[in-house]
C-alpha cells in the first residue's frame, strides 16, 4: 500500500473529517489517486471552494469543505460515473475555469464571495452559460448535495437514520408539527 492509498483510506474511514495534511496540497497534483480522470491540486482546491459555495458552513452546521464533499464528488465521478459523464465533467471543468477567468480575470478561489455568488446565480438561471458549464455544475451540485444529506452529521442530527428501528407500524397518524 503506497502513501497515497493509505491516506485515501484514512480519509474515507474517518468519514469526512478533515485529515488532509497541508503537504498534500502541492500544486498540480490531486491529494489522492484518481483512476480515470485527471484533476490537479489547484483544480481540487477550486472544487472545494465551489462545493463550499453550494453548501456553505453555517453556525453549528458543517459545510461542504468540512464534509470533504469535493473529495466525495471526485471519488464518485472517478469511480461510479460512466465515461460520458466523466468526459462531461472534465470538459465542463475547463469551461468553468475559462468562464471565471473571462469574467473576473482570476481563478475562482481568488474571487470574492460576491463574485462567486453572482456567478452561481447566473449559472443557476442559465444566463448565457455554455452547456458544458451547466453540465459540470449539475454534476458537482448533485454530489455536493448527496455528500451533505448522507453525511454523519445529517443522518445523526437532521434526519436521524435508524440502523435498528426495532418496529414497524403500518398505520399511524401523520404528526403535524
Amino acid at each position, binding site marked *: 500500500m503506497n502513501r497515497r492509498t493509505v491516506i485515501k483510506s484514512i480519509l474515507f474511514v474517518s468519514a469526512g473529517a478533515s485529515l488532509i495534511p497541508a503537504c498534500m496540497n502541492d500544486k498540480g497534483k490531486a491529494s489522492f489517486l484518481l483512476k480515470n480522470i485527471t484533476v490537479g491540486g489547484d483544480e481540487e482546491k477550486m472544487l472545494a471552494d465551489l462545493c463550499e459555495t453550494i453548501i456553505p458552513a453555517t453556525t453549528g452546521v458543517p459545510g461542504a469543505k468540512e464534509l470533504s464533499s469535493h473529495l466525495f464528488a471526485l471519488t464518485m465521478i472517478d469511480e461510479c460515473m*460512466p465515461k460520458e459523464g466523466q468526459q462531461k465533467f472534465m470538459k465542463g471543468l475547463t469551461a468553468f475555469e475559462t468562464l471565471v477567468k473571462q469574467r473576473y480575470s482570476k481563478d475562482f478561489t481568488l474571487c470574492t464571495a460576491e463574485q462567486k455568488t453572482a456567478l452561481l446565480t447566473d449559472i443557476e438561471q442559465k444566463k448565457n452559460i455554455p452547456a458544458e458549464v451547466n453540465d459540470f455544475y449539475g454534476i458537482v451540485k448533485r454530489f455536493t448535495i448527496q455528500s451533505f444529506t448522507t453525511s454523519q452529521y445529517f443522518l445523526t442530527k437532521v434526519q436521524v437514520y435508524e440502523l435498528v428501528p426495532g418496529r414497524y407500524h*403500518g398505520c399511524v397518524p401523520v404528526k403535524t408539527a
Partner: protein
Amino acid sequence: MANNNFDAIVIGSGISGGWAAKEFCEKGLKTLVLERGRNVVHNKDYPTTNMMPWEFKHRGQIPEDIAEKNPSIARCYAYREDAMHFFVKDTDHPYVQDKPFDWIRGYQVGGKSIMWARQTQRWSDYDFDGPVRDGYAVDWPIRYKDLAPWYSYVETFAGISGHRDGLPNLPDGEFLPALDLSCVENYFKDFIAKTYNDRHVIYARCAHVTEPQPIHLKQGRGQCQKRTLCQRGCPFGGYFNSNSTTIPWAANTGNMTLRPFSVVESIIYDDKKGRATGVRVIDTNTKEQAEFYAPVIFVNAAALNTNLILLNSTSSRFPNGLGNDNGLLGKYVAFHNYRGHISAVHHGHLDSTTDGRSPTSAYIPRFRNVFKQETDFLRGYAAGFSANRWGGGRKAEGFGVALKENLMKKPELGPWFVGSHMMGETIPKETNFVSLDKTQKDEWGMPLLKINVGYDDNDEKMLKDFFDQLTEMYTKAGFTDIRTGDSKQAPGLDIHEMGGIRMGKDPKTSLLNEWNQLHACKNVFVTDGACMTSTSTQNPSLTYMALTARAVDHAVSELKKNQL
C-alpha cells in the same frame, strides 16, 4: 484428510444443502458438506452488517468499472455496495449465453440464502396438478398431501411469519405472528375482497422470526428488528439463512465436516456396483483433486450448477451424464417471468403514514386459471403489492444558505405510492435447456455451462394480462397515475431458475422419482431447484426446503433397510 469416507455427502450449502446437512447430521450420519466458495460464519463474516450509510465509500453504488465488466450481476437489484461481496462476478465465473440469461450466483457457505428475498409461500394441489391438467411437462409424482407435513416441519424450524388466510390455492402453514400491513395495503386488501370473488391480497409470508420460539432461541436467533438490511447478513438472526440456522445446527451435532473451496468436478459412478460411490473434488485454491466416498449423495449446488455437475458426471454406463438415459438431462428448464411491474398513486388516507421499516409487504396469490382454464394463455401469475408513503423530494433549487436550509427541512409527505410486480409461471420446454460447452473450460477445468433459455408467446400474453388485470384492480380501488412497465429483463434475473432434472413418475420422461432419487442411480438425490417439474408462481425456496427434509428422511430409512 486421511479418512475420505463419510455416511453422506451433500454438495452445496445454500438454502437446500443446509437443510440436507442438518437432517443427515441430526439423524447421526457423518456428513461431508462441500461448498465451492469460501466459508461465511454467521455474524463473524458479515462485514457490512452494522455499517452506517455514510461509511460506504460510494454510498451504496457499484463502481462503474465493475458494473461495466459484469453486466449480468450488475442488473441484480441486491447487487449493491453493502452486499456485493456475497455475489459472483460474471468475469470470475464465465458462462455461455446462447440466449441472454442473467445468471445470479452466490458462491459461499450459505449460498444465496444470505441475500434471498425471504418470501415463503406454500404450493397447493392447484400448482401440483398444473402439468397434468393443462397438458405440459409431465405429471408431478407428488401432491400437496405428500409435502404438507414437511412444509410444517421446515416452517417451524426456520421461523415463518404469516397470517392464516384460509385460501385453498395458498395453504396456511405454521406461522409466527404477521407484521402489520400498511394502511393502504390493508385498504386494498379489503377492497379486493369485497370487489372480487376470486382475488385476494394477503400479508406475504416471509422467513422472519417475528416472535422467537424456544427452537429459534436454541439456534441462537432472536427477533427480527426490522432493519431491512437482510442482504448483509443479520446480527440478530432475524431472518432464515443457512449460516445462522441449519449449518451451525448441523455442526453442533459433531457429525458435519464442512469443506469450503471445493468444486465438485463429478459424481463417481461404479459400473460394477451399479451405484454412485462418491465425488471428485477440485480444491479451488490448490487445484488439487481429491475423492470422497459415501453411500448417499445429495446434489444441492443450485439449479443450474446441479445440472452442470450431473452433465459432467460421465461413465461408460452414463456417457451423457449421470442418470441421463432418456437424454432429457438439462432440458425443460423454466423460471419465473418477472418482467411486468405497475405503479400508481393513492391520494386517500393522507392523515396516516407508516413508522419503522417492514421487511415484507403484501402478496396477491395467483387468481388466473386456478380452478379452471379461463384465458388464452396457460397458468398465471402471483404479484407483490406494496403501498408506502415517502417524503416528497427535497427542494434542490439554488445554492448557498437557502439551499442548505431547504435540505435540512423535513420534507413534506407526498401521497401514497403503490406498486406490484408479477411472478409468472413459465412453461418448461425441451427447447429451454442447458448443456456443456464442448471446448471452453473454467480455470478449474470444468466445462462452461451453455444456457439456452428464453420467453415464449405464453409469457407475452400473460404479461399483457397482468397489466390489464392489475390496471383494472388499481383503477377500481381509486388509484391514479397508473403506469405499467415491461423491464424486458432476460430470464435468470428473477433468480428462480428451475428444472433440468425434473421429477416424474416415468423414467422415460423424467430424471427423478417421487423421492428426488435419480431413477437410474438411486443413491443420488437432487432436491434443489433442478428437480422442479413445473414452476408455478410461488417463491420456490420453501418448497426446496420441504422436499429436501422429506428426501433425507426417505434416504436414511432406505439406508437402514440396505436399499440404497
